[in-house]
């Protein structure tokens, strides 16, 4: 390993654990400030910058956990998930992995759910731009095209399955209100982006079925088939078209093939 590479390894080791002192030997001391004191500026800045990124990405989680627990979570994250992306935007993307394996967070199901909500909003915020299909385009489809129709949904469309009232907790925190007590409450929510703004709403079971199929295979025929669990053969086509129109109005659909 050449001298510069060795220096950089030692510097990075110090940033990640300031008890490693090899780099100190390479620093020129001065009358003003000892080498150790100079290096502290870098280790402090390293931790501070990463904590700031996590606090921004997980603002509601921070509010829910309080300073002490969130600080504990951040330190664990910084120690275990060093940044491998040039942009801080992606530094916190593995937070759910840590939350789901580290106590006490692991035992608090709603903490994982709130983490996923925050990640979903971050993902929808800057997911790829793609113009939505219009109802006019839908109306212009040939009758025979419906049999093999496939739809493609926007990258921002994400489903969030919840066992607790985590979305209500998140909403209260977002509005700077006291969150409700956590209670078991199965629900599924959808997060997506429309007109550059992230939106969310709860899904009823039939729409969840339809949307899950649309997201996995995109086949409209399979959406209809899956909806037979919820509706009669007569009702199903109208219901399926109704959902499709709603998704188009909400700018979730980016292609009809």
């Amino acid at each position, binding site marked *: 390993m050449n001298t510069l590479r060795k220096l950089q390894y030692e510097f990075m080791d110090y940033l990640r654990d300031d008890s490693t002192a090899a780099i100190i030997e390479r620093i020129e001391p001065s009358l003003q400030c000892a080498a150790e004191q100079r290096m502290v500026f870098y280790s402090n800045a390293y931790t501070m910058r990463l904590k700031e990124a996590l606090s921004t990405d997980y603002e509601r989680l921070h509010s829910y956990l309080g300073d002490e627990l969130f600080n504990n979570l951040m330190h664990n994250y910084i120690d275990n998930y060093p940044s*491998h992306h*040039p942009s*801080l935007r992606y530094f916190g993307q593995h937070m759910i992995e840590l939350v789901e394996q580290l106590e006490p967070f692991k035992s608090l199901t709603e903490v994982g759910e709130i983490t996923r909500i925050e990640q979903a909003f971050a993902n929808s*915020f800057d997911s790829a731009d793609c113009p939505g299909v219009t109802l006019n385009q839908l109306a212009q489809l040939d009758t025979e095209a419906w049999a093999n129709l496939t739809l493609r949904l926007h990258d921002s469309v994400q489903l969030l399955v919840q066992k607790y009232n985590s979305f209500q907790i998140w909403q209260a925190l977002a509005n700077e209100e006291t969150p409700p007590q956590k209670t078991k409450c199965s629900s599924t929510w959808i997060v997506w982006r429309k007109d550059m703004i992230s939106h969310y709403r709860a899904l009823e079971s039939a729409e969840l079925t339809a949307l899950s199929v649309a997201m996995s295979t995109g086949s409209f025929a399979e959406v209809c088939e899956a909806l037979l669990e919820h509706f009669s053969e007569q009702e199903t086509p109208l219901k399926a078209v109704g959902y499709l129109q709603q998704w188009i109005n909400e700018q979730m659909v980016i292609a009809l093939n």
Partner: protein
Amino acid sequence: MTRPFLGFGLGLRTEHYPYILENKPDVDWFEILSENYMVPGGKPLDYLDKIRNDYPMVMHGVSLSIGSTDPLNTSYLKDLKQLMQRVQPEWISDHLCWTSVNGTNSHDLLPLPYNEDTITHLVNRIHKVQDYLGQRILLENLSSYVTYKNSDMTEWEFFNEIARRADCHILLDINNIFVSAHNHQFNPVDYLNGIDINRVMQFHLAGHSYHGEMIIDTHDHDVCDPVWSLYATALKRFGAVSTMIERDDDIPEFPQLRKELAIAEDIARKTLPANALQINTSSHCNYTDLSYEHTA
């Protein structure tokens, strides 16, 4: 040489998007932080496109890690080039530093030892980057808090030699010179006098904070008087150089920041003849010095 002169600009910050779009303030140009827009889509790029319609821009990065001993990050360079194609900036810049090693990013601008081995290493990498981007880049001097025992030249000797051999430009951060001069006990005017006039394409100005005996480059205060004074000295040496103020923390309302930029304009007007301060962008003057062909 005819250096393009964009006038006086500000760093584009999210806090100011609505104000800029609504008021179209009188600012000559904006500098964007490249990494903030290296995302697939959404609001950041939407705002960027709208503001770009009204203002010239330059791109300023923090993650090129030109001094790292890791291989150049080709995925990063690809995203950077894609953003360049979208923004069509007057130029792009990053820092004379390293930010990552062994695949781990520090998200900080870390200093390099100033010696011949580092120069050789950097020159080779700058050529590769410029070859890939098809144009010269600007590199900026850091604020630093340490120097290394294996440095054997001054920062300005190191910087000049790299710029000469790599055929790149210099973004001179006046505040960073002031900060490093204080932290490492050198005369900031020696730094200015040691830099090749023909390589300097842009100035940065910013505020800083005192932490005991050291000054930290925090970008959370107004530009202080000694830095304004150093700026005037720099103008005398380098002539009209596109100048902008960076503010990254405790960000004031846009009109307040605009007033601070007016101080820079005022100093330039008092220091340089009026005809030197005419806006002169690459598109206006067919300036081709940013085009780059590496034949080595």
